[in-house]
């Protein structure tokens, strides 16, 4: 009897192409190559405004990247703590974690971002990009918490029993036996969340954080080339999400190879 890793179904989020999924893999190639080709073609055939736009926004891509990576790392930590809290037998901790998840899930992301950004500004004067990262992480931490909870609960009970019967404490069991296995199970949904976060990070442009979208909006509002600018912005976002979903797909395949 081999123990197969359980998988978690997560509804939304970007599709992650695996080599085994032929349809999606082909679609990925088509979209990625198509987007790159379109962008290049536009830049060389109509340098004004396309080349101008492409040279205007790179620092915005960097900010988008910073916000996404920062938020996902922080969200992973918050999510792990929340997930552990949600399965805790301690009523207070469990209640607190559940309350956090319920409250966050009940408020639109955009509203939370506004709220946390300006609340942080009023209370502890946190710089803008960090505020944006915290705002995104607080939100995604709740979703991540549910992913971790599901991941931990997907590990068969016998694993914990085996560890406990060897004399391990509960925390040793969690740390050495349950979490390493759970991490593997949560990787695909965490990958999904990462892509979703990359896209949702465009919401921080509302906070005057100079991300990819805001750089585009700035360019458009000055040059009045709305259609052209948003074409470029959309293509860049598409290339970014496709690129990262591919990387996540490769990571997933690596992990699924043996064991």
């Amino acid at each position: 009897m081999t123990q197969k890793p359980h998988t978690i179904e997560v509804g939304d989020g970007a599709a992650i192409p695996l080599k085994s999924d032929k349809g999606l893999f082909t679609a990925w190639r088509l979209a990625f190559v198509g987007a790159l080709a379109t962008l290049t073609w536009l830049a060389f055939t109509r340098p004004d405004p396309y080349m101008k736009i492409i040279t205007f926004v790179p620092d915005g891509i960097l900010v988008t990247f910073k916000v996404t990576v920062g938020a996902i790392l922080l969200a992973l930590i918050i999510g792990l703590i929340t997930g552990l809290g949600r399965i805790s037998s301690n009523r207070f901790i469990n209640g607190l974690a559940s309350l956090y998840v319920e409250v966050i899930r009940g408020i639109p992301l955009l509203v939370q971002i506004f709220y946390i950004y300006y609340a942080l500004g009023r209370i502890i004067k946190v710089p803008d990009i960090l505020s944006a990262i915290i705002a995104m992480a607080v939100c995604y931490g709740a979703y991540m918490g549910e992913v971790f909870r599901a991941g931990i609960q997907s590990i068969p009970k016998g694993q914990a029993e085996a560890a406990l019967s060897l004399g391990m404490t509960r925390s040793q069991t969690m740390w050495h036996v349950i979490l390493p296995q759970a991490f593997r199970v949560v990787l695909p949904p965490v990958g999904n969340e990462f892509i979703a976060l990359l896209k949702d990070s465009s919401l921080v442009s509302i906070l005057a954080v100079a991300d990819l979208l805001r750089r585009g909006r700035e360019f458009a509002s000055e040059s009045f080339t709305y259609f052209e600018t948003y074409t470029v912005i959309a293509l860049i976002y598409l290339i970014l999400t496709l690129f990262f979903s591919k990387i996540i797909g490769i990571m997933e395949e690596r992990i699924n190879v043996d064991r």
Partner: protein
Amino acid sequence: MSTGERRTMVQARDVVKFYGQFKALDRVSLTVYEGEKVVIIGPSGSGKSTLLRSINRLENIDGGSMVVNGMDLYDPKTDLTKVREEVGMVFQSFNLFPHRTVLENLTMAQTVVRRRPKKEATEKARYLLEKVGLSEKADAYPGKLSGGQQQRVAIARSLAMDPKLMLFDEPTSALDPEMIGEVLDVMKDLAHEGMTMVVVTHEMGFAREVADKVIFMDHGAVVEDGTPEHFFTNPTHERAKLFLSQIL
């Protein structure tokens, strides 16, 4: 046989366990002496696994007392992990850690719980793997092993902790028939070395050959308690007779 001077490893008194309304254990008492091999048999749902699992408190009991290796499991001062360090357990479904190699399965608790240096733990692990005949699988992941091999690794993993008592919860029930023998052989070797063992099993041949004492359970209660000769040749209770007639 005189048991007066022998240490008592397990002392269960009037143990009661409920699953909701269902009474899984009904005033069960059990004494296991050091070096003794006790085999618990009975139809499914008779409470034999529940009794076994309550010995290292994987199951909480609702009444009675349980003293293992001199430690009262329900004394708030008792450190449960200290009890479990001394009590090995082998499961029906092996429960090897799939994310670790066979060798790491054997060294993990040694280093984490016993705080042995890595070198010492590895030596011990290799010795035990050789003992169960799986030296060449040390660096494999459990998923690549057959069921019989996995169960032998699981036994070695428990032995790595130098337990004073070994619990076996239907160790061969999930195995293909041709693999049962290799696991039973390892268990027999262990018995001959003098390990204290409590075994829940349907393997009557094993019970007959190895057991000092056979316990027959039905409906959460101990129905028969005696030597294998007595149990297999002349059971007193009707239900035991019926069970034997079905299984033999």
